[in-house]
């Protein structure tokens, strides 16, 4: 009897091929093409300095904010569940909107906050967001949920007995915090710092909105300007891409080197209990949470709403007038709105679907098979985390402009970019779900006579379905708001909403931008909400 490859083997091979095809060519393209181009960043040391300042500044601020939030929102805080939900909201809001919101809040002359401050202080006090500090602050607000999530996960993993043992052996609460809790949180803190740094140096929208106008240029805005110039300076742009890639790789390497020396076995057990080793102060901790929610989400969105519903933005309160004309314009007058909305929704749905499917395939192969090279597959699928979206988009441009495939200039190239960029998220979400399922559940189905396909369809998929659906909805929202890669890959036919927003920001009326930003938010949340509702109804039926 000849040995025919089993379906699970075929799935493993297929998944590995797709992941390789998605990740490797753009990476190779950036490295090979940029390396031959001379090293443009050497000619702009100021921008290199700005990039580092922006990257490290954002990282430090975001880790302090996110870690502080994780400690603050440990059990015992009033309204904890609500706060935990609100604190991670910035993950689903494009930083572009947050940055524009802060521009309307705290631009030196017309910012709402400054209007109030000037009225109160007689023009002597100004908070200016359109500065390097403002850029870093807003980027930190936008990325703080990452360290919050990682560090609160680590906090949950600290067994209460570890800290209780320290207390019993004579440690004060302060000693417990410094001697036990913080060292145990260090790996998660470090991991989130690297993650934030890579996100920050790859962040385009915040520096574009708050930095560029005052000449605070970083690598991403530099890449954008090099490609916008005529003729586009591809090679120089790629050289900047390599710089970003090298920075990300160096930090990722440093992190794994540091963690190798001090690795902790995963600690699980009874939940972390705060009152025993932290000064309790529940009100103060809740206040910190609400302050963050206000700065990162509520205030910028209110400013956006304000800007969208004013006839025009003015420093003179007497001239302010409510008006629906901007919403009317972006919905009915602006020619790109509906094309972009359709493209965005289609791309969001397709990329969320592919990411979830591919992510599930990768996690299944990694967790459930002994396929050769599966740990490599795992690392490869996680690689986009340490590759800024904009650099990845550059690589895609290089690959697909040269390939005779009719992908460049279509939604296809955006789809490839989105699927690859969000793949790590899909893998994490589905592998978390698969880890919850004892492998014996699948094995029992096989031994009971079910084929691989049947055991997938009847046992595994129904059991991971809830996670898969919520992951889909979140991916949809995130993909709807992607800016950094889209801005390099779109053409007039394949424009998406976030690019249309940025386009209006550069060339249009600020109030129209705000209105379009709201349209974008509404479309993404409404569709994601409808999908989740539909699933719940089906689950009940």
């Amino acid at each position, binding site marked *: 009897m000849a040995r025919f490859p089993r379906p699970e083997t075929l799935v493993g091979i297929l998944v590995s091929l797709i992941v390789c095809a998605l990740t490797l060519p753009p990476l190779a393209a950036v490295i090979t093409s940029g390396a031959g181009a001379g090293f443009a960043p050497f000619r702009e040391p100021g921008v290199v300095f700005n990039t580092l300042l922006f990257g490290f500044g954002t990282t430090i601020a975001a880790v302090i904010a996110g870690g502080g939030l994780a400690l603050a929102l440990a059990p015992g805080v009033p309204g904890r569940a609500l706060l935990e939900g609100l604190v991670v909201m910035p993950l689903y809001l494009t930083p572009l909107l947050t940055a524009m919101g802060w521009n309307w809040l705290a631009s030196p002359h017309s910012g709402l906050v400054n209007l109030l401050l000037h009225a109160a202080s007689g023009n002597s006090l100004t908070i200016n967001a359109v500065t390097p500090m403002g850029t870093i602050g807003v980027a930190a607000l936008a990325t703080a949920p990452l360290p919050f999530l990682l560090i609160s996960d680590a906090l949950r993993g600290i067994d209460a007995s570890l800290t209780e043992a320290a207390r019993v052996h004579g440690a004060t609460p302060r000693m417990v915090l410094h001697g036990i809790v913080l060292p145990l949180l260090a790996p998660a803190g470090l991991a989130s710092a690297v993650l934030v740094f890579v996100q920050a140096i790859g962040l385009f929208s915040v520096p574009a909105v708050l930095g560029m106008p005052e000449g605070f240029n970083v690598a991403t805005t530099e890449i954008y300007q090099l490609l916008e110039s005529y003729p586009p300076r591809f090679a120089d742009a790629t050289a900047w891409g390599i710089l970003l890639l090298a920075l990300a790789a160096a930090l990722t390497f440093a992190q794994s080197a540091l963690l190798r020396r001090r690795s902790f076995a995963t600690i699980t057990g009874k939940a972390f209990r705060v009152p025993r080793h932290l000064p309790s102060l529940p009100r103060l901790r809740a206040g910190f949470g609400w302050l963050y929610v206000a700065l990162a989400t509520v205030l910028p969105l209110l400013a956006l709403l304000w800007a969208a519903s004013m006839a025009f933005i003015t420093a003179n309160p007497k001239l302010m007038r409510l008006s629906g004309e901007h919403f009317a314009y972006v919905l009915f007058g602006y020619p790109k709105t509906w094309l972009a909305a359709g493209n965005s929704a289609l791309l969001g749905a397709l990329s969320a679907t592919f990411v979830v499917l591919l992510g599930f395939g990768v996690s299944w192969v990694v967790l459930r098979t002994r396929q050769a090279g599966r740990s490599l597959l795992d690392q490869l699928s996680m690689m986009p985390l340490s590759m800024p979206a904009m650099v990845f988009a550059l690589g895609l441009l290089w690959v697909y402009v040269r390939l005779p495939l009719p992908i460049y200039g279509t939604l296809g190239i955006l789809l490839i970019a989105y699927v690859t960029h969000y793949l790590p998220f899909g893998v994490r979400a589905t592998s978390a779900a698969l880890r919850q399922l004892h492998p014996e559940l699948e094995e029992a189905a*096989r031994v009971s*006579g079910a084929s691989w396909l049947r055991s997938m369809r009847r046992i595994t998929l129904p*059991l991971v379905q809830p996670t898969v659906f919520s992951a889909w909805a979140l991916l949809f929202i995130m993909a709807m708001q992607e800016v950094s890669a889209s801005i390099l890959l779109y053409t007039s036919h394949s424009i998406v909403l976030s690019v249309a927003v940025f386009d209006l920001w550069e060339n249009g009326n600020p109030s129209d931008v705000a209105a379009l930003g709201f349209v974008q938010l509404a479309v993404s949340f409404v569709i994601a909400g409808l999908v989740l509702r539909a699933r719940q109804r089906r689950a009940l039926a």
Partner: protein
Amino acid sequence: MTATRPIAARRGPVTIEALTVAHGMVLAVRAISISARGGEVLTLLGPSGCGKTTTLRAIAGLEEPQEGRITIDGRTVFDAAGGINLPPERRGLSMIFQSYAIWPHMTVFENVAFGLRARGIRRSDLSSVARQSLDLVGLAALADRPATRLSGGQQQRVALARSIAGNPGVILLDEPLSNLDAQLRLAMRTEFRELQRNLGLTAIYVTHDQEEALVLSDCVAVMRDGVIEQAGTAAGIHDRPATRFVAEFVGVRNILPCDAAEESGRTVARLPGGALLACSGPAPDGPACVCFRPINVRLATQPGPGAFPATLTAANYLGDLVQYHLHAGELTIWARGLPRSDLAEGAAVFWSVPPEACFLVAA
């Protein structure tokens, strides 16, 4: 548990020949050969990491071995040389997992019916066959209950019903009782043995509990580091462990280094300190240990033939029995017996072991 089955189960034998399973660079199972006769229980007994579960999973088709051959009921399901490797669903067996692996999104009935559907049983028979096997384990009343609302013992029964519903010739059990409390474990053990006998199932049972193995099995194979140290009947393993490892594993507490010699046709073990023990069975080549169970040590307060002096250093009350701790020079001897008023801690005692209870293993 007395219901009989309308369809006679196939009493298929399972044969493993030179089976080798590697996990990466580690050989989990090294060229073992063993077989379970049709309608009998073969138990793979050993400490964790000895390769027993890997062997079971290889039989089920859940692990791919590197070498060897597995035959179930005369049909080759795996043969490395012949390139045969049937997937689990085509091996015609069933399995009870350590975690029970009850599918949480189904009812009790659906859990049992799943395998029947997968095996293509006729729709008209499905319900009656599933209910019949639920009946056999006493769960007919819970058929429509969601699987998440079951106690540990009930889950165990669902797993059992599920595994016999498909009318398999062979059933594999991976430490099925280890998650139950002590009382339930005893009850389920008896129940399973009865069911297995009534249905004439061939069973391969994996456990690290020697008592469970002895009670349940027709044949026991003791495994260590991927090889079978000894295989035989439960009584054979219990009474005559072939190696020091097996002796330790099946609870022979006294394993003492000695000089073994043949004297006038009998094997005699000379212990340090001069005590001489007559043994049954042959002496191994090279250094030897004399072995005997604590329960076989006889204690007396007066000297007697073949008895040696010692000091009773501790008497620990175990409930029905008392465990005695003796010191004789550098020797420590464990004895076990009914509580006796004449054996107080610190007393001088004389101990002896009947020759039929003493045997020798290689040191």
